[in-house]
Every structure is written in C-alpha cells, then in structure tokens.
C-alpha cells in the first residue's frame, strides 16, 4: 500500500509539473503581455522598463527556471492587474468552487445511482425508458444553456431565485442543478451499464440459485460489484464536472476559481492563470488519488494480496 501511495504521489507531482510547464511555454510563445498594460503609443523605453520589471526580457529558459523555483515555494508572482499574490487570490476562491462542485456531485450521485440501478434491473420498463431518456438528453444539453434557461424561468419570470452571485444557499440552487444535470446523465449511464453487466454474471446466478431474494440481490450483491467500475468512471468524470463548474460559475457569476480564471484569461493576467492551472491540476490529481484508494477498498482483489 505504501508502495502504491508513493508511486501515485510521484505521479501527481509529475502531472502538476508538466501541466505548469506546458501552460508556461504556451503563454510565453503566444506573445509578450507587457503591451497590454501600457497605452499603444507608449515609448519604447517605458515598454523596456516594464519588461525589465516583470522579467520578460530575459532568456526563456531563465524565466522558466525562475518561475519553477518560485512556484515550488508557492510563489506564482503577483497579479498583473491588482498586484496581489496570485496563488492567494486563487486559494481564496477555492471554498466557493468546492461548495458548488461538492453539492452538485452529491446531488448527481443521489439521483443517478438509484436511477441507474432501477433502470438496469427493470430493463425496458418505464423506469428504464426514463433513465435512458435522461441519459441521452442530459448529455446533449450544454450546461451553460441550461443555466440561462433556469435563470430565465426562475429568476426572470417567476422571480423566486437570484440570477447569480454567491453567498447563501439560495444562490446555490440553480448553479447546482445546472452543473449536476450533465453528471446525472453520465453517472446514470455508468450505473446502468455496469449494473447490466454485473446482473449477467455467473455469481449472480449462483446467489439466485441459493434463494437470495431480488432486493438484497440487487442492492447488496450486485451494487457492491458494480461500484468498482462506477468509482473509476465517476473519478474520471470529475474533470468534466470541474470544467463544467467553470462555465457554470461564469453563467451565475459565482465567485469561484472558474470565474477568476475566465477573467484572468480575458485580461491576460497570466500569473493568476498559472496559479489556477496549478490548483486545478492538483485538485484533480488528488481526487483521482482518493478514487484509487476507494477502488482498492471495494475491490478485495487489490486489497488482499
């Protein structure tokens, strides 16, 4: 187990390191951001001065090693706009994003797993048709559009919920639904298909042959088996959830990392972009790491060796 954890930690470090490297060079190759901060007719000296100040005049590899050396210590520089510490800005937004992502995750699991199980067990029944319908439709609806439509109905027409902003639980309702819809569709699909797969297995027949009734058969036996693939797929899909969170945050003006990242991209405020990339890659890597441990927990073939 220790062996496994060390291996995974090394992998996390490698992933974050490569992600930062890639984005760093992409940014530097796309042009010099100094021009953005000065009027178009700024004298040459002023530009030079600014470049000097920000270090953009030095050779690329030096800038890179400097950046990495600082990044290792948690220093991603200051926001080019507000001169605040970039990493701190991102970290300040973290709780809001977590709040949104976690409520959406819980909501989608709570709906999707029972629906998927029912859909698989009562195959071709009305439940199954509803389940499959949600799956197919949910995957075709872009979540930003769903957000707009929800705003239109609940905020513009019915005026019962706020259009956006953060702070209270009321603000959380529409963004959560928006973000969860796609995940509900995906997770229902995973659950259904892995359940269908498990229900065909020989050992389910064995359990039936020893007289286990339907409900424990599905809820205890088959579900535990199908959790193994479900956990893997859900973990893989959390990236999509995080990505969706960014868009949802923009639609609802939710004060999370996603909105900050978007604004920084618009403003070409690259220290913040890099800090945000760092945090997102790190979070995602940690989620996958946790999923792996969970996976090992439910799968005795890995646990007991």
């Amino acid at each position: 187990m220790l062996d496994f954890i060390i291996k995974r930690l090394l992998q996390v470090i490698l992933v974050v390191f490569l992600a930062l490297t890639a984005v760093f060079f992409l940014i530097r190759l796309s042009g010099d951001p100094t021009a953005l901060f000065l009027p178009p007719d700024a004298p040459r000296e002023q530009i030079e001065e600014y470049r000097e100040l920000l270090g953009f005049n030095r050779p690329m590899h030096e800038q890179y090693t400097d950046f990495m050396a600082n990044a290792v210590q948690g220093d991603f520089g200051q926001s080019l706009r507000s001169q605040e510490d970039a990493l701190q800005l991102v970290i300040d937004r973290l709780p809001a994003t977590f709040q949104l992502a976690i409520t959406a995750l819980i909501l989608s699991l709570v709906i999707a797993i029972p629906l998927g199980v029912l859909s698989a067990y009562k195959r071709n029944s009305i439940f199954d048709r509803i389940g499959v319908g949600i799956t197919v439709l949910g995957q075709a609806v872009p979540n930003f559009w769903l957000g707009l439509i929800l705003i239109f109905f609940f905020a513009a027409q019915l005026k019962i919920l706020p259009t956006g902003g953060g702070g209270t639980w009321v603000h959380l309702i529409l963004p959560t639904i928006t973000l969860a819809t796609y995940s509900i569709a995906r997770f229902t699909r995973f659950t259904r298909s892995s359940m269908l797969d498990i229900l065909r297995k020989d050992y389910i027949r064995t359990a039936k042959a020893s007289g286990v009734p339907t409900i424990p058969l599905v809820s205890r036996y088959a579900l535990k088996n199908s959790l193994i693939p479900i956990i893997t797929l859900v973990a893989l899909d959390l990236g999509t959830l995080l990505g969706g969170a960014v868009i949802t945050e923009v639609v609802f003006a939710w004060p999370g990392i996603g909105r900050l990242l978007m604004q920084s991209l618009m403003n070409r405020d690259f220290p913040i972009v890099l800090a945000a990339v760092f945090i997102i890659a790190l979070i995602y890597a940690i989620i996958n790491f946790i999923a792996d441990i969970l996976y090992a927990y439910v799968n005795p073939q890995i646990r007991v060796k």
Partner: protein
Amino acid sequence: MSANLEKALHNKPAVEVKNKKESRVYNYFANLFRSWTGTLGFIIIIGLLFISIFGPWITPHDPLYADFSKKLLPPMTDGHLLGTDQLGRDILSRMIVGARVSVIIGVLTVVIAGTFGTIVGIISGYFRGWIDVVLMRIVDVQLSFPFILLVLVINAIIGGGLRNIIISLAIGGWVIFARMIRSEVLALREKEFITACVATGVSRFEILFRHILPNLFTPLIILASLQIGTFIIAEASVSFLGFGVQPPEPAWGNMLNEGKDYIFSSWWLITFPGIAIIIAALGVNLFGDWLRDTLDPELKGD
C-alpha cells in the same frame, strides 16, 4: 436414397453469396430503421448535413444584415420566423449559417484529433517500449486536466476564430483517441489470430497494416461519431464564453453569448440556438449509440 435425403444431407449451395456486399448495406439500413432512436439520429444528421451544405441558399434573410429598426422582434413577426436579435438580424438565418460552423468544427476536429490520436495510439500500443511510456505519460498529464478548461485556456492564449478553435479542440481531444486506440491495439496484439500471423511468418509491418488496422476501424468509427457531439458542445461553450468563433460570424455559441444580456426581455435570443445545439448533439449521440450497439455487440446495453 430419395432426393429429399440428398438435400438434407448436403449443405445449402452457394446461392446468395455473390450479393453479399449489397445485402450487407441493405442489412445495415434494415437494422437502422428497426431502431427508432437510430433512425431519429440518422435523420437529424442528414438534416444537419443538408443545412450546412445548402445553408447560404436557404436562409430567408441575410444573416449578417443588421436593421436597427427591426431589433429584438419576437418570433413570427414581420417575416422573421424565429424573431430578430439585438441588432435586428434574422435569428433563423443566423442559426442556419451557424449550423455549418458547428458541422465543420465537429467533423474537422474529429478528423484531426482522430488521425493524430490514432497514430499515437498505434505507435504506443504496437511498438511499446520507451516511446509508449513517454507518450502515455503525456496522455496522462493531459487527461489530468479537464478537457473543456484545457480547450478554453489554449483558445484564450492562441486567440479566437474558426481555425484556432479547431486547433484548440483537437489539442484537447486527441488523447481520448490515443488512449482508446492504444488499449484496442494492446488487446489485439494479444489475440490468438495475431500470434497465428507471427507463426505463419507475416512481417511485423504487414501484421500492423493487414491485421491490426482493419480491426481498429469499428471502434474508431464508434468513438468518432460519439466525439462529434462532445466537440460541438465544447465549441458552443467556448464561443459562449467569448472565445472561439468571433462575432459577427454567426455560431450557435456566440449567438447565445450575445443573447444572454437580453434574457429578461427577449427569451427567443437564447432559446432557439440552444435548442439547435441540443438537437445536433442528440442526433449525433443517438446515431453513435446505435452504431455501437450494431457494430460492437459486446458493448450492448452500455
């Protein structure tokens, strides 16, 4: 022995065998029309293709012509079936032209990302060794970053426009193909019929081209059809956020971006382009699901 017996003892003779190719195409269609979801997907795809090819000739109005006297007209007024936008442009016409953008982006991205991903997947899976380790590390790193965010960051950095959004989507999307093709190749390599080729003395090159590649076609076509939907939605999302396809060129995503400011007054600005995206994505996904169920019975029920 009676004639009857003769017949019973011998296998059916070789009738029908000649028309095999034709009957196979026929079979696919017969099979398609048996599934209403597949049929629906197929019809939507044909419709989309038709609109995107003949779009400029079938628009009721000039999609770029702005008439401020006619701004924000609700649907069914003044010859504007779906109304006009904030600049007085005809929404239906803009949607028709926008369809072409979506189709071009969906198809081209799949072709580029699919080709690149397939090549990487084959190299990685067939030749293994250090090159596999390096390539798969890259794939892992990329997969550890949410797809849509990656596309967004790349597009924001390299700039908007049709060409750049395709590049961004392809950079974001190739890993799925690479990973799937690699695992497919790895599985094929272990198949006994490949071992049989080695035992026959077939060269490695020929094994790859004559035996492995033809078996990759089915999974590739299934994945590609399902990915088109993902790419169409991703493009709309990026354009909606103000990157991607830039106005005034109409795309469903940027129409929604422009329309969102009028959400309290003019619901039609955000409604119709959104429905168009849903229909397109739905059509491609339904067809893709049907393809998978038909071509790959192993995955049925997924």
